[in-house]
């Protein structure tokens, strides 16, 4: 099957949604999102029977660039994450009308299109084009549909934009350098490029800047909390569940195998930064009163954890990272959506003004509690499998890195449960808190099913990703 079809589905969806008018926009968009999800599942089935597939046509003759896409196990799980989350993300807002819906849903589909392109492309320039393209829609989603004061929202969106754009440009410079050096930007060509040690260090740093800002890794995280907080729910979910994963995926796909020497050389530095991020996020989260900001910092802590797994440069670290990428994607949806559910009912983002929700909304209480358990990686959830494997991978590097990570798991459990206590328990409040609607329940159920199923039986995922990770490891351990 031609892989490019999924890109066409999403792009066509974006256009059709734009022209379908505000009344039907969300339904039309949902239809296309489901079509894309169905297509990616059929790609999965095909992958299981025939293995990796690729697609390539000539694009630019001079410089010589082909539009090439490739699906291997790693791309496939990222593609599935992206296309399965998209309907769920839309489900969070589908019963909630906002202004100019056709543009909003069209931008969401366009963003998904760009991110799908990032996960599939196997030519560095095509990859970069998609990577940059994903930035435009999210910027407008935050500026136009975000919450909070308009001037402040504009400022934080602008900061975010310039930050990420600046990082990406250094990556672009590195890509151009490699093109001039190698004469091609195809994935396998630049994997096999003979880069000297100095070149590797510079290219590694240029890529790291782009990815560290996107993921974000401490100390490049300063844009994150305020943008997560000010974005509308779909924007927050796209950023937290998918866009940060784009950065992590790129590290595995584009950074480590290209510059293995530099990766080993700078491993301890990057690992320390990631671990600082893990602890920093957890400690700052303790002091947040805004629920969305709280989850933003919690998320910072978790992606730091994943980054540590990736940069450990061990097979187990990578495998755990990919698993946790998937788990965190599904888990973060539940967390941010819980904040949104409370915000819709109580009209306040502040934890100090919440409390006593438990007694009036039993379904929500259970759903929220499960999401918290998943995010603190209780055994039998998917997150546990990921965190455990990462810790094993990091342990192989040095025991010293393991201790702060272990401490962070404990800290995570503490701040999450403490927050839950303030928000949900306590005296019954006199405001009404209607329980979850069907659409809202569906969001929680869908993500919970994934988290539990793969928490108990993660072998299918491991089977898909391990061949590609093993191949990447041979490049990393050159």
């Amino acid at each position, binding site marked *: 099957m031609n892989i490019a079809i999924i890109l066409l589905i999403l792009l066509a969806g974006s256009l059709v949604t734009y022209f379908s008018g505000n009344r039907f926009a969300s339904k039309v968009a949902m239809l296309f999102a489901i079509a894309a999800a169905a297509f990616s599942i059929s790609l999965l089935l095909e992958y299981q029977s025939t293995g990796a597939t690729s697609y390539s046509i000539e694009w630019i003759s001079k410089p010589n660039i082909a539009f090439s896409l490739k699906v291997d196990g790693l791309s496939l799980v990222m593609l599935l994450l992206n296309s399965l989350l998209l309907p769920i993300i839309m489900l969070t807002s589908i019963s909630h009308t906002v202004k100019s819906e056709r543009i909003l849903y069209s931008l969401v589909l366009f963003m998904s299109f760009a991110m799908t392109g990032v996960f599939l492309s196997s030519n560095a320039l095509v990859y*970069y*084009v998609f990577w*940059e*393209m994903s930035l435009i829609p999210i910027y407008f989603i935050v500026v136009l549909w975000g919450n909070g004061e308009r001037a402040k929202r504009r400022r934080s969106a602008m900061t975010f934009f*310039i930050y990420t*754009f*600046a990082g990406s440009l250094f990556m672009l410079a590195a890509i151009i350098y490699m093109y001039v050096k190698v004469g091609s930007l195809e994935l396998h060509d630049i994997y096999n490029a003979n880069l000297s040690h100095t070149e590797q260090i510079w290219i590694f740093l240029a890529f790291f800047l782009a990815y560290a800002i996107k993921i974000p890794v401490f100390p490049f995280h300063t844009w994150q909390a305020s943008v997560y907080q000010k974005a509308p729910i779909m924007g927050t979910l796209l950023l937290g569940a998918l866009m940060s994963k784009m950065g992590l995926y790129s590290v595995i796909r584009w950074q480590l195998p290209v510059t293995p020497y530099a990766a080993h050389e700078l491993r301890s530095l990057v690992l320390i930064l990631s671990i600082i991020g893990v602890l920093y996020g957890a400690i700052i989260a303790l002091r947040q009163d805004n629920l969305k900001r709280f989850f933003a910092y919690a998320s910072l802590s978790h992606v730091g954890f994943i980054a540590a797994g990736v940069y450990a440069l061990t097979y187990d670290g990578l495998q755990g990272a990919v698993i946790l990428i998937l788990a965190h994607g599904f888990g973060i949806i539940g967390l941010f959506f819980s904040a949104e559910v409370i915000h819709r009912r109580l009209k306040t983002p502040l934890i100090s003004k919440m409390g006593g929700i438990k007694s009036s909304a039993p379904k929500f209480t259970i759903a929220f509690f499960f999401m918290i358990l998943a995010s603190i990686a209780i055994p039998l959830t998917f997150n546990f499998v990921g965190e455990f494997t990462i810790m094993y991978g990091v342990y192989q590097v040095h025991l010293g890195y393991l201790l702060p990570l272990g401490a962070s798991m404990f800290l995570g459990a503490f701040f999450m449960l403490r927050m839950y206590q303030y928000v949900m328990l306590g005296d019954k409040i006199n405001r009404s808190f209607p329980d979850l609607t069907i659409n809202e329940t569906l969001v929680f159920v869908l993500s919970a099913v994934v988290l539990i199923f793969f928490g108990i039986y993660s072998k299918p995922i491991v089977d898909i990703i391990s061949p590609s990770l093993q191949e990447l490891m041979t490049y990393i351990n050159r």
Partner: protein
Amino acid sequence: MSTLVAVSALGIICLLLEVLNLRKILVPITLLGLAGILGMTIAEFYLNTSFLDIDTYKMVVSTGYSRGFSSLFIILTMLVLMMSPKFYAERIDKIADYVALIIFMLAGAIAMVSFSNLSMFFIGVEVLSIPAYILAASNPKDKMSNEAGMKYFIMGAFASSFILFGIALVYGAIGSFDIETIIAISMAQGEALPVWFKIGFVMIAVGLFFKAGVVPFHFWAPDVYEGSPTLVTALMSTLVKVAALGALYKVFVIFAVGMTPAFQIVVVILTILTLSVGNITALRQRNLKRLMAYSGISHAGFMMMDLLSNGAGTNVILYYAAAYSLAGIAAFAVIMAVCGDKDEDISNIFGLAKEKSYLAGLFTCAMVSLGGIPIFAGFFAKLFMFTQMIESGYLILVIFGVINSIIAIYYYFGTANVMFSKDSVRTQALKVDARYVIVASIAITLNIILGLFPSVIMGLTI
């Protein structure tokens, strides 16, 4: 040759139509004529022949380079002309003069990229410049416009004299105005050439740097851009600038022998200055035309990089020129549509997204393309330019280019931003003429097509 003759003839026809009192059909006829000439130029390009060649005097040579640039110039002129009836609505009785002047500018621009004799080159420069001086002052009741015309004229005449002096020095060294002779003799003699040759080359380059608005010869640009009628500003910041850079590139190829290491360093420094000064000054501008002027200066810096490619970056400079000027025309069309007769303060576009979302979308596209974000041509232009520079061994320019792209995105996006995030200051509803919207849409569409299929230009053999 044929293109140049046809365009000059078209300019005369414009004047004749005025005499015959056919003012109403003037613009359509001119557009039709330009479309025909465009078709002819493109046909010449693909057939690789010239329909009309009078090479007795070897004044004009028709090459892939000249045909490519000529096509771009013709497209830009057509876009500007489409807007002129609306823009000159109040002085519609004089429209024939304006249109004819614009067509003669086009002729000058074409001569500047297709000359094969230095005297023709100088004639091209003057034919481009003199209508530009007149047009800058074409709003006689406005003090600013008069000032702009005067400033532009004095500074421009000064620069022209540099070019002329340079040509004279080159003649002194070589004994001929003919390009082929100059190349042959300078190649043969190499270091034995009299020093006049190099000085002459530098002086020609300086004169053209002035026309292109390269720092430190850029001081006229913001005032002239702000004072001139917006339509003329659009012409100056696209057609004139691109023509000057196209000519510069050609001159640098011809005088490759005169490119001493010292002058290389000077060009590198000027490029870095042009990039940075233009961008940093643009950060604080509140007037949209001034903003475009400074942004144009920094883009001139990007295009200047290619002068160092030693003749290897021909496609790149054409691609960059097309990407930049198409986005620029679109931006100016929106500015004209929104600001009308009033000043071009940035507050005019506040809240435009709510009033005219389509127009706001077009302006955003133009800004995004100028900022260099895929899938717009502006991104690929920068990409190809950076690739060319690394291949030519100027990593330092790429580093400065990257830093400047980051600075630039701040004001490009800041400008686009206010359309969405601020409230309109307008008291009555905004009326937008369809012509501006059409021109901006065509320019953006062409820009995106160039972005999706860069091979349209990059694949050409020129």
